[in-house]
Protein backbone atom coordinates (compact mmCIF):
# COMPACT_ATOMS: atom_id res chain seq x y z
CA UNK A 1 0.00 0.00 0.00
CA UNK A 2 3.00 2.29 0.49
CA UNK A 3 3.49 2.39 -3.27
CA UNK A 4 -0.13 3.33 -3.85
CA UNK A 5 0.06 6.07 -1.21
CA UNK A 6 3.22 7.56 -2.65
CA UNK A 7 1.64 7.46 -6.12
CA UNK A 8 -1.43 9.27 -4.86
CA UNK A 9 0.75 11.89 -3.18
CA UNK A 10 2.69 12.41 -6.38
CA UNK A 11 -0.46 12.76 -8.45
CA UNK A 12 -1.96 15.22 -6.00
CA UNK A 13 1.16 17.35 -6.18
CA UNK A 14 1.71 17.28 -9.95
CA UNK A 15 -1.78 16.97 -11.40
CA UNK A 16 -2.28 20.68 -12.07
CA UNK A 17 1.08 21.06 -13.84
CA UNK A 18 0.59 17.95 -15.91
CA UNK A 19 -2.91 19.03 -16.89
CA UNK A 20 -1.66 22.43 -18.03
CA UNK A 21 1.12 20.91 -20.10
CA UNK A 22 -1.32 18.40 -21.59
CA UNK A 23 -3.67 21.24 -22.52
CA UNK A 24 -0.90 23.10 -24.31
CA UNK A 25 -0.02 19.92 -26.16
CA UNK A 26 -3.53 19.00 -27.24
CA UNK A 27 -5.30 22.35 -27.31
CA UNK A 28 -8.44 20.65 -26.01
CA UNK A 29 -9.56 20.18 -22.40
CA UNK A 30 -11.14 16.77 -22.92
CA UNK A 31 -8.21 15.45 -24.84
CA UNK A 32 -5.86 16.89 -22.24
CA UNK A 33 -7.82 15.13 -19.52
CA UNK A 34 -7.65 11.83 -21.44
CA UNK A 35 -3.96 12.32 -22.07
CA UNK A 36 -3.22 12.90 -18.39
CA UNK A 37 -5.30 9.88 -17.37
CA UNK A 38 -3.60 7.59 -19.87
CA UNK A 39 -0.16 8.81 -18.91
CA UNK A 40 -0.83 8.34 -15.20
CA UNK A 41 -2.19 4.83 -15.74
CA UNK A 42 1.05 4.02 -17.55
CA UNK A 43 2.99 5.55 -14.67
CA UNK A 44 0.95 3.61 -12.08
CA UNK A 45 1.71 0.35 -13.88
CA UNK A 46 5.43 0.95 -13.32
CA UNK A 47 5.33 3.11 -10.20
CA UNK A 48 7.59 0.99 -8.00
CA UNK A 49 10.38 1.11 -10.55
CA UNK A 50 9.87 4.80 -11.33
CA UNK A 51 9.78 5.94 -7.70
CA UNK A 52 12.77 3.79 -6.82
CA UNK A 53 14.81 5.68 -9.45
CA UNK A 54 14.28 9.00 -7.62
CA UNK A 55 12.55 11.95 -9.29
CA UNK A 56 9.54 10.59 -11.27
CA UNK A 57 9.09 13.80 -13.29
CA UNK A 58 11.41 13.00 -16.21
CA UNK A 59 9.73 9.64 -16.77
CA UNK A 60 6.22 11.06 -16.39
CA UNK A 61 7.03 13.82 -18.85
CA UNK A 62 8.40 11.31 -21.29
CA UNK A 63 5.22 9.20 -21.05
CA UNK A 64 3.02 12.25 -21.49
CA UNK A 65 4.81 13.54 -24.57
CA UNK A 66 5.26 10.18 -26.22
CA UNK A 67 1.65 9.30 -25.57
CA UNK A 68 0.63 12.52 -27.24
CA UNK A 69 2.75 11.89 -30.32
CA UNK A 70 1.47 8.32 -30.43
CA UNK A 71 -2.13 9.55 -30.33
CA UNK A 72 -1.41 11.96 -33.11
CA UNK A 73 0.10 9.26 -35.23
CA UNK A 74 -2.91 7.03 -34.78
CA UNK A 75 -5.28 9.79 -35.50
CA UNK A 76 -4.68 13.30 -36.71
CA UNK A 77 -5.73 14.98 -33.50
CA UNK A 78 -5.29 18.41 -34.93
CA UNK A 79 -8.18 17.73 -37.29
CA UNK A 80 -10.44 16.32 -34.63
CA UNK A 81 -13.60 18.38 -34.12
CA UNK A 82 -13.96 19.72 -30.64
CA UNK A 83 -16.56 18.26 -28.34
CA UNK A 84 -17.41 21.77 -27.25
CA UNK A 85 -16.28 25.08 -28.68
CA UNK A 86 -13.32 26.60 -26.87
CA UNK A 87 -14.13 29.38 -24.43
CA UNK A 88 -13.34 32.27 -26.69
CA UNK A 89 -16.44 34.35 -26.21
CA UNK A 90 -15.65 37.80 -24.89
CA UNK A 91 -18.13 39.62 -22.68
CA UNK A 92 -19.04 43.22 -23.34
CA UNK A 93 -17.87 44.33 -19.92
CA UNK A 94 -14.24 43.34 -20.11
CA UNK A 95 -11.64 45.97 -20.53
CA UNK A 96 -9.72 46.70 -23.74
CA UNK A 97 -6.66 45.12 -22.15
CA UNK A 98 -8.60 41.97 -21.39
CA UNK A 99 -9.98 41.87 -24.93
CA UNK A 100 -6.48 42.24 -26.29
CA UNK A 101 -5.18 39.43 -24.06
CA UNK A 102 -8.03 37.14 -25.10
CA UNK A 103 -7.32 37.85 -28.76
CA UNK A 104 -3.68 37.02 -28.25
CA UNK A 105 -4.53 33.74 -26.49
CA UNK A 106 -6.83 32.82 -29.35
CA UNK A 107 -4.07 33.58 -31.79
CA UNK A 108 -1.60 31.49 -29.79
CA UNK A 109 -4.02 28.56 -29.66
CA UNK A 110 -4.67 28.68 -33.39
CA UNK A 111 -0.99 29.06 -34.15
CA UNK A 112 -0.10 26.10 -31.93
CA UNK A 113 -2.64 23.95 -33.74
CA UNK A 114 -0.73 24.46 -36.96
CA UNK A 115 2.38 22.86 -35.50
CA UNK A 116 3.25 19.19 -35.62
CA UNK A 117 3.02 17.42 -32.24
CA UNK A 118 6.80 17.21 -32.05
CA UNK A 119 7.16 20.93 -32.72
CA UNK A 120 4.47 21.72 -30.19
CA UNK A 121 6.12 19.44 -27.64
CA UNK A 122 9.44 21.20 -28.15
CA UNK A 123 7.86 24.60 -27.60
CA UNK A 124 5.96 23.50 -24.49
CA UNK A 125 9.02 21.82 -22.97
CA UNK A 126 11.30 24.72 -23.74
CA UNK A 127 9.05 27.73 -23.01
CA UNK A 128 6.43 26.39 -20.63
CA UNK A 129 8.35 23.80 -18.64
CA UNK A 130 11.58 25.79 -18.88
CA UNK A 131 13.71 22.81 -19.84
CA UNK A 132 17.06 23.19 -21.54
CA UNK A 133 17.68 21.84 -25.01
CA UNK A 134 19.50 18.86 -23.53
CA UNK A 135 16.67 18.06 -21.11
CA UNK A 136 14.13 18.46 -23.92
CA UNK A 137 16.09 16.06 -26.08
CA UNK A 138 16.14 13.53 -23.24
CA UNK A 139 12.38 13.74 -22.73
CA UNK A 140 11.61 13.39 -26.41
CA UNK A 141 14.25 10.74 -26.98
CA UNK A 142 15.95 12.63 -29.78
CA UNK A 143 19.17 14.51 -30.37
CA UNK A 144 19.82 18.10 -29.32
CA UNK A 145 20.16 18.94 -33.02
CA UNK A 146 16.65 17.66 -33.62
CA UNK A 147 15.37 19.81 -30.75
CA UNK A 148 17.08 22.84 -32.27
CA UNK A 149 15.71 22.22 -35.74
CA UNK A 150 12.22 21.54 -34.39
CA UNK A 151 12.36 24.75 -32.38
CA UNK A 152 13.51 26.72 -35.39
CA UNK A 153 10.82 25.24 -37.62
CA UNK A 154 8.13 25.76 -35.00
CA UNK A 155 9.03 29.41 -34.51
CA UNK A 156 9.20 29.98 -38.25
CA UNK A 157 5.75 28.54 -38.66
CA UNK A 158 4.44 30.65 -35.77
CA UNK A 159 5.98 33.72 -37.35
CA UNK A 160 4.28 32.96 -40.62
CA UNK A 161 0.87 32.25 -39.12
CA UNK A 162 0.90 34.76 -36.22
CA UNK A 163 3.35 37.66 -36.75
CA UNK A 164 2.08 39.28 -33.55
CA UNK A 165 3.87 36.57 -31.55
CA UNK A 166 7.17 38.25 -32.28
CA UNK A 167 8.09 38.02 -28.59
CA UNK A 168 8.23 34.28 -28.71
CA UNK A 169 10.99 34.36 -31.27
CA UNK A 170 13.11 36.42 -28.96
CA UNK A 171 12.99 33.86 -26.22
CA UNK A 172 15.93 31.59 -25.37
Amino acid at each position, binding site marked *: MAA*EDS*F*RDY*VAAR*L*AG*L*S*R*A*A*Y*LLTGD*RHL*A*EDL*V*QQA*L*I*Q*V*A*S*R*WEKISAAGDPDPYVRRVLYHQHVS*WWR*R*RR*LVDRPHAEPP*DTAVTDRVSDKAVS*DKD*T*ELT*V*RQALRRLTPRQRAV*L*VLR*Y*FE*DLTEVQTAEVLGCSVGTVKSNTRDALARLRATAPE*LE*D*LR*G*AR
Partner: protein
Amino acid sequence: MSERLLDDLADEMPPARLPADLWTAGRRLRQRRRVGYAVAAVVVLMLVVALPGLAAHRRAALVPADGRGGVPSRVELPHFWQAAVGQWPAGAGGPAALVYFTDRTRYFESTGVAVGVSGSYRLIYQDIGEGEGLLTADGRYYVRPGLRMLDLTTGDERQLPGAGQPLALSPDGRELLVGVANDDGVISYGDDAIPDNDPDKPDDLVAIDLRTGERRFVAVGRLNSYSTAAWSPDGTRIAVEGPVGRGDTGRRWSVMDARTGAPLWSLDVPLTQGLSGPAAWTPDGRRLVVFSFTGCTSTCDQAGYLARSWRVEQADAASGLLLGEAMLMPSGEPVRSIGWQDGRDLVFTYRPDPAGEARTTLVALGPQGPFRTLVETPAGVSGLAVAGDLVRAGAYGGPAPSPSIWAAPAWAYLLATAPFLLLALWIVRRRQRRV
Protein backbone atom coordinates in the same frame (compact mmCIF):
# COMPACT_ATOMS: atom_id res chain seq x y z
CA MET B 1 6.10 37.68 -22.45
CA SER B 2 6.37 34.41 -24.32
CA GLU B 3 6.25 32.28 -21.16
CA ARG B 4 3.38 34.42 -19.93
CA LEU B 5 1.44 33.81 -23.12
CA LEU B 6 1.75 30.05 -22.69
CA ASP B 7 1.02 30.35 -18.98
CA ASP B 8 -2.10 32.37 -19.69
CA LEU B 9 -3.22 29.78 -22.16
CA ALA B 10 -2.46 26.93 -19.76
CA ASP B 11 -4.49 28.69 -17.07
CA GLU B 12 -7.61 27.78 -19.04
CA MET B 13 -7.05 24.18 -18.03
CA PRO B 14 -8.28 23.10 -14.63
CA PRO B 15 -6.67 20.03 -13.02
CA ALA B 16 -7.79 16.95 -14.93
CA ARG B 17 -10.50 14.82 -13.37
CA LEU B 18 -9.13 11.40 -12.58
CA PRO B 19 -11.02 8.13 -12.17
CA ALA B 20 -11.16 6.76 -8.65
CA ASP B 21 -9.55 3.49 -9.77
CA LEU B 22 -6.53 5.09 -11.43
CA TRP B 23 -4.14 2.97 -9.38
CA THR B 24 -6.14 -0.21 -10.05
CA ALA B 25 -6.18 0.57 -13.76
CA GLY B 26 -2.41 0.83 -13.63
CA ARG B 27 -2.18 -2.53 -11.88
CA ARG B 28 -4.46 -4.09 -14.52
CA LEU B 29 -2.27 -2.67 -17.26
CA ARG B 30 0.79 -4.14 -15.56
CA GLN B 31 -0.91 -7.53 -15.36
CA ARG B 32 -1.90 -7.42 -19.02
CA ARG B 33 1.63 -6.47 -19.98
CA ARG B 34 3.08 -9.35 -18.00
CA VAL B 35 0.64 -11.80 -19.59
CA GLY B 36 1.59 -10.39 -22.99
CA TYR B 37 5.28 -10.88 -22.27
CA ALA B 38 4.62 -14.45 -21.13
CA VAL B 39 2.59 -15.26 -24.24
CA ALA B 40 5.24 -13.71 -26.48
CA ALA B 41 7.94 -15.72 -24.73
CA VAL B 42 5.95 -18.92 -25.19
CA VAL B 43 5.33 -18.15 -28.86
CA VAL B 44 9.00 -17.38 -29.46
CA LEU B 45 9.99 -20.56 -27.65
CA MET B 46 7.54 -22.60 -29.70
CA LEU B 47 8.78 -21.06 -32.93
CA VAL B 48 12.39 -21.72 -31.97
CA VAL B 49 11.54 -25.34 -31.27
CA ALA B 50 9.12 -25.89 -34.16
CA LEU B 51 10.61 -23.81 -36.99
CA PRO B 52 13.50 -26.10 -37.87
CA GLY B 53 11.08 -29.02 -38.06
CA LEU B 54 8.60 -27.04 -40.15
CA ALA B 55 11.35 -25.82 -42.44
CA ALA B 56 12.60 -29.35 -42.93
CA HIS B 57 9.06 -30.51 -43.64
CA ARG B 58 8.61 -27.72 -46.14
CA ARG B 59 11.94 -28.46 -47.78
CA ALA B 60 10.97 -32.09 -48.07
CA ALA B 61 7.71 -31.02 -49.63
CA LEU B 62 9.15 -28.52 -52.05
CA VAL B 63 12.63 -29.63 -52.96
CA PRO B 64 13.15 -32.76 -55.03
CA ALA B 65 15.43 -35.28 -53.39
CA ASP B 66 18.85 -35.66 -54.94
CA GLY B 67 18.76 -39.41 -55.30
CA ARG B 68 16.13 -41.74 -56.69
CA GLY B 69 13.51 -42.79 -54.24
CA GLY B 70 11.24 -45.77 -54.21
CA VAL B 71 7.59 -46.42 -54.90
CA PRO B 72 5.80 -45.41 -51.70
CA SER B 73 4.14 -48.29 -49.90
CA ARG B 74 1.08 -46.18 -49.27
CA VAL B 75 -0.36 -42.95 -50.64
CA GLU B 76 -2.91 -40.58 -49.16
CA LEU B 77 -5.47 -38.28 -50.67
CA PRO B 78 -4.17 -34.74 -51.25
CA HIS B 79 -5.29 -31.83 -49.13
CA PHE B 80 -8.11 -29.76 -50.50
CA TRP B 81 -5.68 -26.86 -50.99
CA GLN B 82 -2.81 -28.94 -52.42
CA ALA B 83 -0.78 -27.07 -55.00
CA ALA B 84 -0.87 -28.14 -58.63
CA VAL B 85 2.38 -28.99 -60.42
CA GLY B 86 4.42 -25.82 -60.76
CA GLN B 87 1.94 -23.66 -58.85
CA TRP B 88 3.56 -20.77 -56.98
CA PRO B 89 4.89 -20.69 -54.29
CA ALA B 90 5.03 -24.46 -53.83
CA GLY B 91 6.65 -25.03 -57.23
CA ALA B 92 6.94 -28.34 -58.98
CA GLY B 93 7.31 -31.43 -56.85
CA GLY B 94 10.14 -33.01 -58.81
CA PRO B 95 10.17 -36.36 -60.61
CA ALA B 96 7.22 -38.54 -59.68
CA ALA B 97 7.38 -42.03 -58.26
CA LEU B 98 3.78 -42.54 -59.26
CA VAL B 99 0.70 -40.72 -60.44
CA TYR B 100 -2.73 -41.70 -59.26
CA PHE B 101 -6.18 -40.40 -60.13
CA THR B 102 -8.99 -39.37 -57.85
CA ASP B 103 -12.00 -37.08 -57.91
CA ARG B 104 -11.59 -36.20 -54.22
CA THR B 105 -9.87 -32.91 -54.84
CA ARG B 106 -11.02 -29.32 -54.96
CA TYR B 107 -11.81 -29.77 -58.67
CA PHE B 108 -14.45 -32.43 -57.86
CA GLU B 109 -13.53 -34.15 -61.12
CA SER B 110 -10.94 -36.79 -61.85
CA THR B 111 -7.58 -35.24 -61.06
CA GLY B 112 -4.07 -36.62 -61.33
CA VAL B 113 -1.95 -36.58 -58.21
CA ALA B 114 1.80 -36.80 -58.75
CA VAL B 115 3.60 -38.28 -55.75
CA GLY B 116 7.24 -37.29 -56.07
CA VAL B 117 10.21 -39.44 -55.16
CA SER B 118 10.89 -36.71 -52.60
CA GLY B 119 7.48 -37.33 -51.02
CA SER B 120 5.79 -34.28 -52.55
CA TYR B 121 2.15 -34.29 -53.61
CA ARG B 122 1.07 -32.14 -56.55
CA LEU B 123 -2.18 -32.02 -58.46
CA ILE B 124 -2.43 -32.45 -62.22
CA TYR B 125 -5.55 -30.76 -63.49
CA GLN B 126 -7.46 -32.82 -66.04
CA ASP B 127 -9.94 -31.56 -68.58
CA ILE B 128 -13.50 -32.80 -68.27
CA GLY B 129 -13.61 -36.39 -69.50
CA GLU B 130 -9.85 -36.56 -69.96
CA GLY B 131 -8.51 -40.11 -69.70
CA GLU B 132 -5.45 -41.30 -67.86
CA GLY B 133 -2.03 -40.61 -69.32
CA LEU B 134 1.39 -42.19 -69.00
CA LEU B 135 4.34 -41.47 -66.73
CA THR B 136 7.71 -41.59 -68.44
CA ALA B 137 10.26 -44.10 -67.16
CA ASP B 138 12.27 -41.45 -65.28
CA GLY B 139 9.12 -40.01 -63.73
CA ARG B 140 9.90 -36.57 -65.09
CA TYR B 141 7.08 -36.23 -67.58
CA TYR B 142 3.42 -37.03 -67.44
CA VAL B 143 2.06 -37.50 -70.97
CA ARG B 144 -1.56 -36.44 -71.07
CA PRO B 145 -4.06 -37.66 -73.64
CA GLY B 146 -3.73 -35.22 -76.51
CA LEU B 147 0.04 -35.68 -76.22
CA ARG B 148 0.70 -32.79 -73.90
CA MET B 149 3.86 -33.47 -71.93
CA LEU B 150 3.80 -32.01 -68.44
CA ASP B 151 7.26 -31.56 -66.95
CA LEU B 152 6.83 -32.50 -63.30
CA THR B 153 10.10 -30.81 -62.36
CA THR B 154 9.12 -27.39 -63.70
CA GLY B 155 5.38 -27.39 -64.33
CA ASP B 156 5.94 -26.51 -68.00
CA GLU B 157 3.84 -28.24 -70.59
CA ARG B 158 4.79 -28.86 -74.18
CA GLN B 159 2.80 -30.28 -77.04
CA LEU B 160 4.11 -33.29 -78.92
CA PRO B 161 3.41 -33.20 -82.65
CA GLY B 162 -0.01 -34.49 -83.62
CA ALA B 163 -2.61 -35.85 -81.29
CA GLY B 164 -3.68 -39.22 -79.98
CA GLN B 165 -3.94 -41.49 -76.99
CA PRO B 166 -0.61 -42.45 -75.34
CA LEU B 167 -0.47 -46.24 -75.05
CA ALA B 168 3.00 -47.45 -74.07
CA LEU B 169 6.65 -46.47 -73.85
CA SER B 170 9.43 -48.38 -75.55
CA PRO B 171 11.69 -50.38 -73.20
CA ASP B 172 14.48 -47.83 -73.62
CA GLY B 173 12.01 -45.03 -72.82
CA ARG B 174 12.75 -43.16 -76.04
CA GLU B 175 9.61 -43.75 -78.04
CA LEU B 176 5.99 -43.31 -77.16
CA LEU B 177 3.39 -45.46 -78.85
CA VAL B 178 0.25 -43.51 -79.70
CA GLY B 179 -3.12 -44.50 -81.11
CA VAL B 180 -4.25 -41.87 -83.59
CA ALA B 181 -7.96 -41.72 -84.32
CA ASN B 182 -9.18 -41.12 -87.87
CA ASP B 183 -12.87 -41.00 -87.02
CA ASP B 184 -15.03 -38.02 -87.88
CA GLY B 185 -15.36 -35.37 -85.25
CA VAL B 186 -19.02 -36.19 -84.64
CA ILE B 187 -19.93 -38.97 -82.28
CA SER B 188 -21.84 -41.87 -83.83
CA TYR B 189 -23.73 -44.33 -81.70
CA GLY B 190 -24.47 -48.00 -82.20
CA ASP B 191 -27.44 -49.99 -80.94
CA ASP B 192 -26.15 -49.89 -77.36
CA ALA B 193 -25.96 -46.06 -77.30
CA ILE B 194 -22.19 -46.27 -76.77
CA PRO B 195 -20.01 -44.09 -79.03
CA ASP B 196 -18.47 -46.31 -81.69
CA ASN B 197 -15.31 -46.19 -83.68
CA ASP B 198 -16.07 -46.07 -87.35
CA PRO B 199 -14.67 -49.32 -88.84
CA ASP B 200 -14.42 -47.58 -92.21
CA LYS B 201 -11.89 -45.19 -90.68
CA PRO B 202 -9.57 -47.34 -88.57
CA ASP B 203 -6.94 -45.81 -86.31
CA ASP B 204 -3.21 -45.58 -86.89
CA LEU B 205 -0.44 -46.63 -84.59
CA VAL B 206 2.33 -44.05 -84.39
CA ALA B 207 5.64 -44.04 -82.50
CA ILE B 208 6.92 -40.62 -81.41
CA ASP B 209 10.53 -39.98 -80.47
CA LEU B 210 10.25 -38.12 -77.16
CA ARG B 211 13.53 -36.27 -77.65
CA THR B 212 13.11 -35.09 -81.24
CA GLY B 213 9.33 -35.24 -81.60
CA GLU B 214 9.76 -37.24 -84.82
CA ARG B 215 6.71 -39.34 -85.75
CA ARG B 216 6.91 -42.77 -87.27
CA PHE B 217 3.89 -44.72 -88.52
CA VAL B 218 4.03 -48.27 -87.18
CA ALA B 219 0.68 -49.51 -88.42
CA VAL B 220 -1.88 -47.79 -90.57
CA GLY B 221 -5.56 -48.60 -90.35
CA ARG B 222 -5.76 -52.07 -88.91
CA LEU B 223 -8.09 -51.79 -85.92
CA ASN B 224 -11.06 -49.58 -85.15
CA SER B 225 -8.92 -48.20 -82.34
CA TYR B 226 -6.12 -49.28 -80.03
CA SER B 227 -7.12 -50.02 -76.46
CA THR B 228 -3.87 -51.66 -75.32
CA ALA B 229 -0.33 -51.81 -76.62
CA ALA B 230 2.72 -53.51 -75.18
CA TRP B 231 6.32 -53.41 -76.32
CA SER B 232 8.25 -56.67 -76.05
CA PRO B 233 11.13 -56.51 -73.52
CA ASP B 234 13.73 -56.55 -76.31
CA GLY B 235 11.91 -53.79 -78.15
CA THR B 236 11.53 -55.74 -81.42
CA ARG B 237 7.82 -56.52 -81.31
CA ILE B 238 4.64 -54.75 -80.36
CA ALA B 239 1.45 -56.47 -79.22
CA VAL B 240 -1.77 -54.54 -79.63
CA GLU B 241 -5.42 -55.09 -78.89
CA GLY B 242 -8.39 -53.27 -80.25
CA PRO B 243 -12.03 -53.55 -81.30
CA VAL B 244 -13.07 -54.67 -84.77
CA GLY B 245 -16.38 -54.81 -86.60
CA ARG B 246 -19.28 -52.38 -86.71
CA GLY B 247 -20.25 -51.37 -83.20
CA ASP B 248 -16.92 -52.57 -81.79
CA THR B 249 -18.47 -56.00 -81.29
CA GLY B 250 -15.26 -57.96 -81.91
CA ARG B 251 -11.77 -57.91 -80.43
CA ARG B 252 -8.47 -58.60 -82.13
CA TRP B 253 -4.93 -59.14 -80.93
CA SER B 254 -2.04 -58.52 -83.19
CA VAL B 255 1.73 -58.74 -82.83
CA MET B 256 3.86 -56.81 -85.26
CA ASP B 257 7.44 -55.89 -85.94
CA ALA B 258 8.24 -52.77 -83.92
CA ARG B 259 10.30 -51.15 -86.68
CA THR B 260 8.41 -52.01 -89.86
CA GLY B 261 4.95 -52.67 -88.45
CA ALA B 262 4.78 -55.90 -90.44
CA PRO B 263 2.16 -58.10 -88.75
CA LEU B 264 3.53 -61.36 -87.34
CA TRP B 265 0.13 -62.68 -86.49
CA SER B 266 -3.41 -61.51 -85.70
CA LEU B 267 -6.11 -63.30 -83.78
CA ASP B 268 -9.74 -62.51 -83.10
CA VAL B 269 -10.55 -63.25 -79.48
CA PRO B 270 -13.72 -63.17 -77.39
CA LEU B 271 -14.53 -60.06 -75.39
CA THR B 272 -13.81 -62.00 -72.19
CA GLN B 273 -10.08 -61.97 -72.94
CA GLY B 274 -7.87 -58.90 -72.88
CA LEU B 275 -4.18 -58.16 -73.04
CA SER B 276 -3.18 -57.17 -69.52
CA GLY B 277 -1.56 -53.84 -70.38
CA PRO B 278 1.79 -52.22 -71.27
CA ALA B 279 3.59 -55.02 -69.35
CA ALA B 280 1.72 -57.84 -71.09
CA TRP B 281 4.94 -59.45 -72.34
CA THR B 282 6.64 -61.82 -69.91
CA PRO B 283 10.25 -60.81 -69.19
CA ASP B 284 11.54 -63.58 -71.48
CA GLY B 285 9.39 -62.25 -74.36
CA ARG B 286 7.79 -65.65 -75.01
CA ARG B 287 4.36 -65.15 -73.55
CA LEU B 288 1.64 -62.56 -73.22
CA VAL B 289 -0.29 -62.11 -69.99
CA VAL B 290 -4.03 -62.01 -70.45
CA PHE B 291 -6.73 -60.93 -68.01
CA SER B 292 -9.83 -63.06 -68.64
CA PHE B 293 -13.16 -63.32 -66.99
CA THR B 294 -16.23 -65.50 -66.95
CA GLY B 295 -19.51 -63.67 -67.01
CA CYS B 296 -21.55 -61.27 -69.04
CA THR B 297 -19.78 -59.29 -71.76
CA SER B 298 -22.22 -56.69 -72.99
CA THR B 299 -25.20 -54.78 -71.63
CA CYS B 300 -24.34 -56.07 -68.18
CA ASP B 301 -26.41 -54.93 -65.26
CA GLN B 302 -24.72 -54.24 -61.95
CA ALA B 303 -25.28 -57.79 -60.67
CA GLY B 304 -23.95 -59.30 -63.87
CA TYR B 305 -20.92 -57.07 -63.81
CA LEU B 306 -20.14 -57.95 -60.20
CA ALA B 307 -20.65 -61.66 -60.85
CA ARG B 308 -17.67 -61.81 -63.21
CA SER B 309 -14.87 -64.03 -61.97
CA TRP B 310 -11.40 -63.04 -63.12
CA ARG B 311 -8.29 -65.06 -63.86
CA VAL B 312 -4.79 -64.37 -65.07
CA GLU B 313 -3.77 -66.43 -68.10
CA GLN B 314 -0.86 -66.57 -70.46
CA ALA B 315 -0.88 -66.82 -74.26
CA ASP B 316 1.85 -67.94 -76.61
CA ALA B 317 3.53 -64.82 -77.97
CA ALA B 318 4.14 -66.59 -81.27
CA SER B 319 0.51 -67.44 -81.94
CA GLY B 320 -1.75 -65.77 -79.40
CA LEU B 321 -3.21 -69.06 -78.30
CA LEU B 322 -3.89 -69.47 -74.61
CA LEU B 323 -1.55 -71.91 -72.89
CA GLY B 324 -4.16 -73.22 -70.49
CA GLU B 325 -2.46 -72.15 -67.28
CA ALA B 326 -4.91 -69.93 -65.45
CA MET B 327 -4.56 -68.38 -62.04
CA LEU B 328 -7.94 -67.63 -60.52
CA MET B 329 -8.41 -64.33 -58.72
CA PRO B 330 -10.20 -65.00 -55.44
CA SER B 331 -11.84 -61.58 -55.52
CA GLY B 332 -11.55 -58.22 -57.13
CA GLU B 333 -10.72 -57.21 -60.66
CA PRO B 334 -7.31 -56.83 -62.32
CA VAL B 335 -7.07 -53.62 -64.33
CA ARG B 336 -3.75 -53.08 -66.05
CA SER B 337 -0.30 -54.63 -65.91
CA ILE B 338 2.51 -52.11 -65.46
CA GLY B 339 5.65 -54.25 -64.98
CA TRP B 340 7.39 -57.19 -63.46
CA GLN B 341 9.11 -57.59 -60.12
CA ASP B 342 12.27 -59.70 -59.96
CA GLY B 343 11.48 -60.92 -63.48
CA ARG B 344 8.90 -63.23 -62.03
CA ASP B 345 5.95 -61.48 -60.35
CA LEU B 346 3.48 -59.55 -62.48
CA VAL B 347 2.77 -56.07 -61.12
CA PHE B 348 -0.64 -54.67 -61.99
CA THR B 349 -3.30 -52.29 -60.82
CA TYR B 350 -6.20 -53.96 -59.12
CA ARG B 351 -9.66 -53.12 -57.82
CA PRO B 352 -10.04 -55.10 -54.59
CA ASP B 353 -13.74 -54.47 -54.21
CA PRO B 354 -15.64 -53.59 -57.40
CA ALA B 355 -18.92 -53.65 -55.48
CA GLY B 356 -17.75 -51.18 -52.87
CA GLU B 357 -16.17 -47.78 -53.00
CA ALA B 358 -13.92 -47.16 -56.01
CA ARG B 359 -10.37 -48.03 -55.06
CA THR B 360 -7.43 -49.13 -57.15
CA THR B 361 -4.25 -50.49 -55.62
CA LEU B 362 -0.99 -51.85 -56.98
CA VAL B 363 -0.34 -55.55 -56.42
CA ALA B 364 2.19 -58.19 -57.44
CA LEU B 365 1.23 -61.73 -58.36
CA GLY B 366 3.77 -64.54 -58.44
CA PRO B 367 3.48 -67.87 -60.25
CA GLN B 368 2.36 -69.51 -57.04
CA GLY B 369 0.26 -66.61 -55.77
CA PRO B 370 -1.17 -65.20 -53.61
CA PHE B 371 -0.67 -61.61 -54.61
CA ARG B 372 0.92 -58.96 -52.44
CA THR B 373 -0.15 -55.35 -52.18
CA LEU B 374 2.69 -53.03 -53.20
CA VAL B 375 0.94 -49.68 -52.85
CA GLU B 376 -1.94 -49.20 -50.43
CA THR B 377 -4.39 -46.56 -51.54
CA PRO B 378 -7.36 -44.85 -49.89
CA ALA B 379 -10.89 -45.09 -51.24
CA GLY B 380 -11.42 -42.83 -54.23
CA VAL B 381 -8.22 -43.72 -56.10
CA SER B 382 -9.25 -44.84 -59.56
CA GLY B 383 -5.97 -45.46 -61.38
CA LEU B 384 -2.20 -45.63 -60.94
CA ALA B 385 0.82 -45.05 -63.15
CA VAL B 386 4.32 -45.81 -61.86
CA ALA B 387 7.67 -44.59 -63.19
CA GLY B 388 9.15 -47.38 -65.33
CA ASP B 389 12.68 -47.09 -63.87
CA LEU B 390 11.34 -47.77 -60.38
CA VAL B 391 9.25 -50.66 -61.70
CA ARG B 392 12.31 -52.23 -63.37
CA ALA B 393 14.43 -51.67 -60.25
CA GLY B 394 11.70 -53.25 -58.14
CA ALA B 395 12.06 -50.34 -55.74
CA TYR B 396 8.81 -50.96 -53.89
CA GLY B 397 8.04 -50.52 -50.23
CA GLY B 398 9.40 -46.98 -50.03
CA PRO B 399 8.43 -44.59 -47.22
CA ALA B 400 4.78 -43.56 -47.21
CA PRO B 401 4.77 -39.75 -47.36
CA SER B 402 1.87 -37.62 -46.27
CA PRO B 403 0.93 -34.62 -48.38
CA SER B 404 2.50 -31.49 -46.94
CA ILE B 405 0.08 -28.87 -45.70
CA TRP B 406 2.58 -26.20 -46.78
CA ALA B 407 2.64 -27.23 -50.45
CA ALA B 408 -0.23 -24.89 -51.19
CA PRO B 409 -0.98 -22.19 -53.75
CA ALA B 410 -0.75 -18.52 -52.80
CA TRP B 411 -4.51 -18.12 -52.45
CA ALA B 412 -4.52 -20.80 -49.73
CA TYR B 413 -1.93 -18.87 -47.73
CA LEU B 414 -3.99 -15.71 -48.18
CA LEU B 415 -7.15 -17.50 -47.11
CA ALA B 416 -5.45 -18.96 -44.05
CA THR B 417 -4.03 -15.64 -42.91
CA ALA B 418 -7.12 -13.58 -43.74
CA PRO B 419 -8.80 -14.10 -40.32
CA PHE B 420 -5.64 -12.96 -38.55
CA LEU B 421 -5.26 -9.97 -40.85
CA LEU B 422 -8.89 -9.04 -40.27
CA LEU B 423 -8.43 -9.46 -36.50
CA ALA B 424 -5.34 -7.25 -36.57
CA LEU B 425 -7.23 -4.67 -38.63
CA TRP B 426 -10.12 -4.78 -36.18
CA ILE B 427 -7.78 -4.28 -33.22
CA VAL B 428 -6.06 -1.32 -34.89
CA ARG B 429 -9.42 0.27 -35.76
CA ARG B 430 -10.66 -0.30 -32.23
CA ARG B 431 -7.58 1.31 -30.76
CA GLN B 432 -8.03 4.28 -33.07
CA ARG B 433 -11.65 4.66 -32.02
CA ARG B 434 -10.61 4.67 -28.35
CA VAL B 435 -8.27 7.62 -28.86
